[in-house]
C-alpha cells in the first residue's frame, strides 16, 4: 500500500480540552494512549484525539417561543400556543441528526409577523427547514446570508409569506416568518446535526423540551452506536425500547403533555477494550465517499488501528466533532480505480466497518459543518483582510454546496403565490 496513504491512514484529532475534569479519559491518561498509538501508527503523520469529557454542556433552550409581532406602534408581542411536538432523532456513532416539528395555533384575524428562536444547540448545524401554512408545505433554500436577508425583506414588503433563518452572533438560530396569512396553525419543521457527547461510559443525546402543557408529544430515536449497547437510561421518561441488534435500538415515547426539561437519552457502550466504528457512505454527487469514525473505550489501552488498513482510509483534512470525545468525520480518497468494499465487520479487529445507510446525506453535511467551524476559527485569528475574505469565501462555498446554515449563509423561503 502507498506509504503516504498509510501515513495518514487514521488521523484522530487530539483536543484534550484544558477544561477537562478528572474523569476516566482525562488529559493525564491520554498521554500513554497517544504514545502507544503513535508507535502503532508507524509512519502516520499525526494522531489526534478529541476528548472533551467533562467539558461544560451547552444547554438547549428550555422552551421555544413563537412570538407574533404587530406592526402597530406600541403593540406588544403575543406568544403563540404550541399545539403539537414531534421529534425524530437518528444517531450514527456520535453524530446525531434531529428533526423537530412544532405546530403553533395562530389566533389572528389578520396577517402577522413571527419571530422564533429555534430550540436547538448552539453548536448545531441547521440542514433543513420546512414551513407549512394553510395546507401548503414549502422547503426553504440555502442562500448567502446578505442575499437571503435582502430577498426576505423585499418579499415581506410585497406582502408575501416569507421566512428567514439566520445564525445570531450569540450562536442561537433566529427564525423570522413574515406576513403569515390568516390561518388556523403554522407548522415549522427544522432538522439539525449535532455531536453526541460522551461522558465516561455514557453517550448522551439531549432533545429539545416541550412546554408542560396538555399537548401531544411524540419522540422517536433510532440509535446505531456501531458497537454493542449495554443499557439505556431515559430518566423520568418512559420510553419503549426495541433492540433491533446489539448495537442498535429504536426508542419511542408518546405523551399527552410536554416535559419542561430537555429530554435526555443515555446509552452505555461496552468499554472493555477500545473499539471503533467506521461508518461510510457514498457522496450523492458521485464523489469520494465520506466516513464517520467513532471510537469508544478506556483510554490507555492498545487499539488495533491496523483494522482500517485494507480500506485505504485517507482523511482529506483532520476534522473533529465539537462537544464529543473521540470522533472524526472526513472524506475517503482511493488511489485505485476499483471501488473499495466497505460492508461487513470483522469481530477480531477493533474497528467495525458499517455502511451508513440511514444518514447518508448527513455525513457530507457533517464534514462540511466541521470544515466551516475550522475556517471560522481561523478567520477569527487572522489579521490579514485578504486572507479573512478568502476564508469567508471558502466557508460560503462549502455551506452553499452542502445546503446548511453557517455564519455566512441562511435559509430563506418565499411563497410567491401568497398575498396579504
Amino acid at each position, binding site marked *: 500500500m502507498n506509504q503516504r496513504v498509510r501515513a495518514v491512514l487514521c488521523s484522530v484529532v487530539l483536543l484534550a480540552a484544558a477544561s477537562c475534569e478528572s474523569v476516566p479519559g482525562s488529559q493525564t491518561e491520554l498521554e500513554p494512549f497517544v504514545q502507544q498509538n503513535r508507535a502503532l501508527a508507524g509512519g502516520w503523520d499525526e494522531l489526534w484525539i478529541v476528548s472533551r469529557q467533562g467539558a461544560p454542556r451547552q444547554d438547549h433552550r428550555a422552551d421555544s417561543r413563537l412570538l407574533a409581532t404587530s406592526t402597530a406602534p406600541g403593540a406588544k408581542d403575543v406568544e403563540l400556543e404550541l399545539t403539537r411536538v414531534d421529534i425524530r432523532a437518528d444517531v450514527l456513532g456520535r453524530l446525531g441528526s434531529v428533526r423537530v416539528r412544532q405546530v403553533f395555533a395562530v389566533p389572528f384575524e389578520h396577517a402577522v409577523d413571527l419571530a422564533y428562536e429555534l430550540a436547538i444547540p448552539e453548536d448545531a448545524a441547521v440542514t433543513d427547514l420546512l414551513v407549512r401554512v394553510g395546507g401548503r408545505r414549502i422547503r426553504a*433554500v*440555502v442562500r448567502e446570508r446578505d442575499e437571503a436577508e435582502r*430577498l426576505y425583506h*423585499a418579499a415581506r414588503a410585497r406582502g408575501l409569506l416569507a421566512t428567514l433563518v439566520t445564525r445570531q452572533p450569540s450562536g442561537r438560530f433566529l427564525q423570522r416568518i413574515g406576513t403569515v396569512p390568516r390561518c388556523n396553525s403554522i407548522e415549522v419543521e427544522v432538522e439539525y446535526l449535532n455531536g453526541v457527547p460522551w461522558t465516561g461510559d455514557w453517550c448522551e443525546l439531549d432533545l429539545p423540551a416541550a412546554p408542560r402543557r396538555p399537548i401531544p408529544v411524540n419522540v422517536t430515536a433510532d440509535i446505531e452506536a456501531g458497537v454493542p449497547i449495554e443499557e439505556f437510561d431515559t430518566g423520568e421518561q418512559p420510553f419503549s425500547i426495541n433492540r433491533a441488534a446489539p448495537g442498535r435500538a429504536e426508542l419511542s415515547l408518546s405523551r399527552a403533555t410536554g416535559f419542561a426539561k430537555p429530554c435526555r437519552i443515555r446509552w452505555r457502550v461496552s468499554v472493555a477494550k477500545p473499539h471503533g466504528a467506521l461508518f461510510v457512505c457514498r457522496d450523492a454527487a458521485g464523489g469520494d465517499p465520506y466516513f464517520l469514525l467513532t471510537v469508544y473505550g478506556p483510554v490507555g489501552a492498545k487499539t488495533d488501528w491496523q483494522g482500517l488498513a485494507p480500506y485505504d482510509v485517507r482523511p482529506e483534512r483532520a476534522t473533529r466533532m465539537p462537544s464529543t470525545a473521540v470522533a472524526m468525520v472526513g472524506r475517503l480518497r482511493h488511489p485505485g480505480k476499483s471501488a473499495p468494499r466497505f460492508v461487513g465487520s470483522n469481530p477480531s479487529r477493533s474497528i467495525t466497518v458499517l455502511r451508513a445507510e440511514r444518514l447518508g446525506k448527513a455525513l457530507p453535511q457533517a464534514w462540511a459543518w466541521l470544515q466551516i467551524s475550522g475556517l471560522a476559527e481561523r478567520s477569527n485569528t487572522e489579521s490579514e483582510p485578504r486572507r479573512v475574505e478568502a476564508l469567508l469565501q471558502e466557508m460560503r462555498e462549502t455551506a452553499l454546496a*452542502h445546503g446548511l446554515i453557517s455564519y455566512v449563509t441562511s435559509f430563506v423561503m*418565499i411563497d410567491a*403565490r401568497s398575498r396579504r
Partner: protein
Amino acid sequence: MKRRNRALELAGLALVVAMCLSYVLFGGGRAVLAQPAFYAIDVFIDSDDAPLAAWQIEVSDRAGLALLTGVEGGEHGAFAEPAHYDPRALKNHRVVLLAYHLGEDCPVGRTRVATLHFVQERAGKPSFKARLVTAAGPDGRVLAARVEIQP
C-alpha cells in the same frame, strides 16, 4: 504582413463582439429591477398508466435570471412532502429535484409533483427548460415519463 495584421484586427473585433453578446445574453448587462419579481412555476410529470414512485428532474433557467426561493410539495399525497434539491446545482441557476415514495398509493397519469418559487432581481425574461433525469415505478422499473413546467 498587412494581411496578418488585418486578420488579427478581425479576430480582436470578433472577440469583443462575442464578449458583449455573452454579457447581454447571460444577464450581466441587464438592469436591476426596482422591485424584485416573485413568481412560481408548477412541475408536472406524466407517467401515463404507470404508477409513479420516484423521480428526478432538472429545471434550468438558460437566461440565468431566476433564483430559487422555495420548493413546494405536489398535489398527490405521495409527493406532498417538498422534494429535496441539490444545493450544488443552484450555483449555476439549475434546480435538481428528487423525491420518492415507498408506499403503495402512487399517482398515475399527469400529476403536479412540485411547485418552484423564484425571485428575479434583473430585467429580462427567464428561459426555463425542464428535463426528466429519471422516473421509476414502485418496483424500481424505469418509466418512460414526461416532465413539463407551467407558470
